[in-house]
Structures are given as structure tokens and as C-alpha cells.
């Protein structure tokens, strides 16, 4: 899922300085609900905080809330079309994709983000998430025993660990696992260490960000 975290309230308040009467706080029911940053619960909490802020600031702002199933599909946005249209300003509690998708659907509206979209990750403990994929567009997990060197090594090294790997941890942070330690142990345990014995060619980063903003079309369904 996409993991996100809420911006600090001061930063959000700074975005809400303009002159408006109705503010819609809009949450998303998918990834950010699971990563406890922009679901219904967080939307309601945000509404409470902002209500307090506006009343303390002596401002008359009507706060509305909604949480739709997914901000990344117009289908779900359109179900709440009136709510979006009635707002003077929208505070999105979806990921960065959601913010931009709303802007595309309602070009006349100003939409500001309440979240910092962080990474693609998995839940590793209650209230804890860790990055697992960078979305490089050319998956190599078969070779590395299901542990990604691109995402799990701080330097995305393909041919082995750097000299900063010590006792299983990364030089960047003593609490971050060394991705190569994980790869090594995993390959050893499944008797596939030979996978990393040979030279690994430089990666073709064209499928990553380096090919420009990416798009994809499924020929069976798309109109292309």
C-alpha cells in the first residue's frame, strides 16, 4: 500500500490562511486508511482540531467531511460530486495521487494536502510500516530471493553490500536492516546463493522515474 503520514498541524493551518467559508476535509478509504493517516477516523479528528483552530482565530469556517472509497478513481470521486463542488477549499487526506486526481476532476477548486505521501510499504507492527518497493518498473525479486536490493539497500546496490554494513545493520541508521544482509541470509537459506555470484549489469532505470512520468495502458481494457 501507499504509506503516508499527516503533516504537522502548523503546516496545514498555514495552507488554510486564505479567505474561504466552507472547507471540505476529504479522506480516502484505501491505503491511507490502513496506514492510519487519512481515513475516516483521522478526517474526523482533523475536523475537530481545525474547528478549534478556526474558533480560536475568530474565523467563521464551516467544516464538512467525507471519506470516499478511493481518490484515485473518478468513479468514487463522482459519488460525492456535490460535496466537492460545494466546498470553497478542499483539504485532501488522500495520498499525492489523490490530491492531483481531485484537481483534475474539479479544476476550478483549490485542493491542499494534509499528508506527506511516504512510500510503498507493508505493516510491520501495529502502527508501523516499512518500505518494501520503489516501483522501479523492472522487478528483480526472483534473483534476490524475494528481498529487493533496490528498495532495501540504502544505495540500491545490485552486486553486494557496501563496506558500511555491520552486524546486520545499515550505515545510514543503526535501526535499519542492511538489505544485503537480508538478501544474503535469504538466498543462503533457500540454497540460491549462486544467484548473486555473478556480475550484475547496470540497471536500466528507464522504467523508473528516469524515463519521465510513467503511464501504462492495459491493451485488453484500454482504448489504445
Amino acid at each position: 500500500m501507499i504509506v503516508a503520514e499527516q503533516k504537522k498541524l502548523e503546516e496545514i493551518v498555514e495552507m488554510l490562511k486564505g479567505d474561504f467559508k466552507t472547507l471540505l476535509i476529504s479522506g480516502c478509504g484505501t491505503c491511507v486508511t490502513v496506514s492510519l493517516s487519512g481515513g475516516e477516523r483521522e478526517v474526523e479528528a482533523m475536523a475537530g482540531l481545525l474547528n478549534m483552530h478556526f474558533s480560536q482565530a475568530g474565523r467563521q469556517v464551516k467544516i464538512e467531511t467525507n471519506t470516499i472509497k478511493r481518490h484515485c478513481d473518478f468513479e468514487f470521486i463522482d459519488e460525492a460530486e456535490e460535496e466537492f463542488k460545494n466546498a470553497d477549499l478542499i483539504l485532501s487526506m488522500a495520498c499525492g495521487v489523490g490530491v492531483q486526481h481531485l484537481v483534475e476532476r474539479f479544476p476550478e477548486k483549490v485542493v491542499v494536502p494534509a499528508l506527506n505521501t511516504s512510500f510503498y510499504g507493508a505493516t510491520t507492527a501495529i502502527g508501523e510500516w516499512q518500505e518494501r518497493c520503489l516501483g522501479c518498473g523492472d522487478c528483480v525479486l526472483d534473483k534476490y530471493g524475494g528481498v529487493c536490493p533496490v528498495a532495501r539497500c540504502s544505495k540500491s546496490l545490485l552486486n553486494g553490500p557496501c563496506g558500511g554494513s555491520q552486524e546486520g545493520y545499515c550505515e545510514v541508521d543503526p535501526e535499519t536492516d542492511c538489505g544485503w544482509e537480508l538478501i544474503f541470509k535469504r538466498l543462503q537459506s533457500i540454497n540460491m546463493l549462486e544467484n548473486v555470484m555473478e556480475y550484475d549489469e547496470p540497471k536500466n532505470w528507464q522504467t523508473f522515474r528516469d524515463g519521465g512520468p510513467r503511464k501504462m495502458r492495459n491493451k485488453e481494457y484500454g482504448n489504445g
Partner: protein
Amino acid sequence: MGEYLSLLEKRLDKGQFVVCSEMGPPIGAGLKTIKNKSAALLGYVDGVNVTDNQTAIVRMSSIAAAYMAKQEGLEMIIQVTTRDRNRIGLQSDILGASALGLHNALCLTGDHQCFGMDTGAKNVFDLDSVQLIKVVNDMVTKGVLLSGKEMKAPPYMFIGGAANPFADPFEMQMIKMEKKVKAGARFFQTQAIYNVDRFVEWMKEVRKRDLHKKAYILAGILPARSIKALKMMKEDIAGMDVPDELIERMEKAEDPEEEGVKVAVEIIDRVKKVEGVRGIHLMPVGWEKITPTIVEKAGFYPRPEVD
């Protein structure tokens, strides 16, 4: 090959035990520092590394500083890290360095930018150190760029890599070192050695894999001038093994600088006898002026002629 472009390579090929050292370029554009540092090292060492924005702190470029030091008569080793430049920038720099008469390159991944002052920088890591070695080697031996483009005038580099006897996971580090050799690394400079026993064990593994016959191993020595420096290395520098006994010894020392030199010379005396070690690499970070003293005390002065 006929005429050697790299004197370091020539010395090693002729069987000399070499002494290398390191020069940190200035944070600034001044020539004077390099001239002074060069003059102090002249005649004492067979090759001098110039670090490439070491610990991710902006300094004068390794190639520019190395070129100026070369004018002062030193044999220079440029350091090239993959942290700040992609394959385009790296290959371009190799061409430029070779054209300037710099023919030794230590190819590294580079410290993560979190260690420096520009922690908000975007890193590159387009290539890793093994890939960089292979790319440079192909430029030199095949006369081709990574793209496949042929060059009329290929560069020449005597290619080196780093090896850390104290990093984990041990076997995977060995596999990587082996890959570097296959990719074209002709010499290795190791991480600073304080734990000699562990280095001796590591060299056993190096010999088991015949890597000492395929590349020259230069043992890294980092003379520490104070207890503070030693503790910092133990705690803050990635991939270092500083035994507690050594810290205690430095703590007891009346003159820490004198003790630091003694310790360095003792380590040199032990590692130079290890089978497969073909030289030492001194890297007295923040204490470069001690290099000649250590070279003399270790019995390496004067340096032999190249021929």
C-alpha cells in the same frame, strides 16, 4: 604492456612493496593547501589518493586536486564514487582524468550523504562500485563506453577498489570482492586496520580464493592522534573495528600523538608480513602531516627507484 602510464602499477608489477597515502582536498578553491601538502609527501610515498567528497562533504574535486598535486611531482590516485554522478558523469570524468595524465582510479560506492553536511541531497547510485570498475575496465581494455560507443582514444586507468575486512556479511563481502576482481580491479585498498587478528583471518580467506594473486592488496592504516579520534572512529564511522584494548592503551598514553604513531607502526609491522599484502595505504584523516614520520619509522624511507 610497454611503457607504464601508472607508476604505481609499475612498482607493483615489479614486485615492490608500495606505500600509498591520502590527501583530503580543501574546502575551497585555493591552490596553496595542495602545494603544501604535496611538498610534504614528495619522496615519501608511491601514490597519493585524493578523496572524492569524502564523508559526503563538499571539497575540491578529486580530479582537479589530483592534477595539481601531480604537477608537484606526486603519483596520484583519483577516487571516484557513484554517490554523486551517474554513468554519464562518471565516464566523462574518467576520460578527463586520463587526458590530464591521471592514470590510477580507486572506484568506490561512496559514503551515504547522511554523513555529510548536505543531508538533504539526492543521491545517485546509478552504478555500484563493481559496475563502475567494469565500466572503467571496458573503457580501458576494449575502448568502449557503457553504451557500446567506441572511442578513438580510450583512457588508461590502473583500477582499484576498496575492501573492508570488518564489514558484514563476511561471505557476501568476499563474493563482492571477487566480483570486483573479475570486473577488472587490479588493486585493493582496505578499510583501516586496528584489529590485526581479524585482518589476518580475512587475508586467509582472500588467499583461499586466490584474490591476492589476481590483485594487489594494500593494507589500510589510519594513524589516530587522540583518544577522541579513536572513539569517534569506533562509534561514528561505518565499517570500523576498533578494539577496546587499543582505546585503553591510548587512554593510558602520556603523549597520545606519539602513541598513535607507535600503534600505526606496530600495525604496519604486523600486516606487512601477512602473505599477500603488497603494500600499505596510509590515511591519517585530519593528521596528514604525520605521514612522512610514519613512513620513516616503519622503515619505508627512502622509497626505491621505479626501475
